[in-house]
């Protein structure tokens, strides 16, 4: 390994550009022509279920996996074909991968040893790095003696000593228990702000992604379904998949009734009528269209008597179940052709309690309708397995 492979300290930009990136394993396509630009200094989360390709992308950026086709640019350089250390990236592994036969200090100093830095100097610099992550007291311990959180900080120190322009994190919080996870979340976020480098963080947990990232990329079987800020992804999901994956949304489908002038109108099942606030959609009459409504923007009232004419943006059904969640209550309503969930604030719920078997009317305002770009192909997600905790 010649010295030229080692990059000087990161003055360069940590912008990442993926161009038509593809990875196939035999007959399976894990990553399918991905195009993505991650700006320098952003905290980007790749979010999706296992098998969607997010870890493969991370490993290709790192250089531990070779793309089948496509290009990866970090800064202005095309890095495919370069060894990991020459890319200016550092990776934090899910299992931390701390070398069990080395002390904490030697683990952190490993990079410097590979650069042939002298023993005293590299130990000195490793100690400084350990000070930064507040683990200096443990420098002579062996990884097996450390707790999960401590191991992670050592792994962090070991990565940061390479002065990377991009830090790649492979599900870093999955191995931690709940309390530790939440604390480490805060630490990662402040660390990224302090360092100012690009973080790419792979996770399957939605609350984690929207808490940490200023750029969320939602993935589904090798493709990117939607990318954007956490706010946009949560409030304006573009596809039924993203709406369901992020949780907290109901997805409904109707056919277009009138698009000429006036608001967009859709005809739904069982005589329901939907009216959106805007009319940006240019679809012919009769085409199917799906939309999402946030579950916590639903109002519920018990329905009195038979079939009164329904106002727009209302659906009728029977309560299937209720679930207490502390500050809110989940109410599962059977619409006779799909399940619908409403989150009611606990104060509102207990003021007028609703029980299983009650006939109810759910309503919302037109402004809360979020039109989706694809038509829903059916409940890929089970409303009972809600994503939001």
């Amino acid at each position, binding site marked *: *390994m010649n010295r030229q*492979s*080692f990059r000087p300290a990161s003055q360069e930009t940590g912008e990442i550009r993926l161009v038509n990136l593809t990875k196939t394993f035999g007959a399976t396509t894990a990553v399918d022509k991905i195009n993505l630009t991650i700006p320098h200094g952003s905290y980007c989360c790749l979010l999706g279920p296992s098998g969607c390709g997010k870890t493969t992308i991370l490993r290709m950026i*790192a*250089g*531990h996996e070779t793309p089948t086709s496509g290009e990866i640019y970090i800064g202005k350089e095309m890095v495919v074909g370069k*060894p*990991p*250390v020459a890319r200016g*990236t*550092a*990776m934090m*592994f*899910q*299992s931390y*991968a701390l*070398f*069990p*036969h080395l002390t904490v200090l030697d683990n952190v100093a*490993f*990079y410097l*040893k*590979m*650069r042939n830095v002298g023993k005293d100097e590299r130990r000195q610099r490793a100690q400084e790095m350990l000070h930064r992550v507040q683990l200096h007291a443990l420098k002579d*311990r*062996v990884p*097996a*003696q450390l707790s999960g959180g401590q191991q992670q900080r050592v792994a962090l120190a*070991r*990565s940061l000593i*390479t002065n990377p322009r991009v830090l790649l994190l492979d599900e870093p919080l999955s191995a931690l228990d709940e309390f530790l996870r939440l604390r480490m979340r805060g630490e990662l976020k402040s660390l990224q702000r302090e360092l100012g480098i690009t973080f790419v963080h792979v996770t399957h947990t939605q609350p984690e992604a929207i808490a940490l990232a200023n750029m969320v990329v939602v993935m589904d079987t090798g493709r990117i379904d939607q990318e954007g800020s956490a706010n946009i992804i949560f409030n304006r999901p573009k596809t039924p998949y993203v709406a369901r994956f992020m949780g907290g949304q109901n997805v409904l489908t109707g056919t277009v009734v009138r698009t000429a002038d006036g608001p967009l109108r859709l005809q739904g099942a069982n005589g329901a009528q939907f009216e959106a606030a805007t009319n940006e959609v240019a679809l012919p009459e009769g085409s199917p269209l799906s939309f999402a409504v946030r579950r916590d923007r639903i109002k519920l009232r018990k329905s009195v008597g038979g079939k009164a004419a329904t106002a727009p943006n209302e659906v009728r059904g029977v309560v299937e179940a209720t679930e207490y969640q502390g500050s809110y209550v989940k109410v599962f309503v059977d619409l006779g052709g799909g399940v619908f969930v409403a989150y009611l604030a606990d104060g509102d719920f207990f003021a007028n309690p609703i029980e299983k078997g009650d006939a109810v009317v759910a309503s919302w305002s037109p402004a809360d309708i979020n039109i989706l770009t694809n038509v829903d192909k059916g409940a890929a997600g089970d409303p009972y397995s809600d994503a939001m905790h």
Partner: protein
Amino acid sequence: MAASPSSYGSRPWTFYALATLFALFVVFLYGPMIAVLILSFQGPSAALVFPLRDPSLMWFDELFNPRRVGDVVGAFERSFPLALLVAALTVVISVSAGFAFRRRFIGDTVIFYTAIASLIVPGLVLSIGVLVTFRYLGMSAAWYSSALGAHLSWTLPFGLLIMFAVLGRLDPSYEEAAYDLGASRWQAVWSVVIPIVLPGMIAVALFGFTLSYDEFPRSWLTVGSKNTLPLEIWTMTTNVTSPALYALGAMTTFVSFAAIVIGLTSIVAIQRRRSGSK
């Protein structure tokens, strides 16, 4: 680790039954060896009677006297270096092959099953084969050539299987982390993989040494005119019934024990250092 739910921690009767079986088995295993050890200290009465009539070290003395007992020292001077050589070669070759087998390559199945076959084939058959092979090549059998090869054909499969177990359990993230931190492939192997699998390598060396040192059938026809220790013992058993044989047994067992102790303590020391207990 107890599988059966026991009330208040008391053990079922089966535990005592099995524990007794285990104790008896250990006695069964060690009894004869201890008997030999005791008998080797017997005096000139040379009787196989317990308790010993007059203990002495005379039989150990006899061992170094080749006229009456056979060329024990000479045999040892062949067995010991042979075992060391076999151990060293087994480690190098098994480790190298173990690394190769981490990927699939052309011929990997053939080589794997050949190694397994080498484990199964009776040593006697192989012995005949190696002798015949050397005859055809016009070379004479000797402990450092034909016997060495015959021993290796037995120890290498063991070494290979151990390396499979060890490398198979090795988390690939360690090497990837090493590459991430700037290691070349060689540096990753030397600085990370080998230190981590070192206990396994010691086990391979231990296997190589003891299997060779104690090997009988594969040495039988392949050592040439000068015997290794197990062969020398064999000739002695058919000719000699003196307690010198037991003295020899005690001594050779001592060498084996020394090897085991060295091997196991180094493995334990490494594991303890890795787990952090000082």
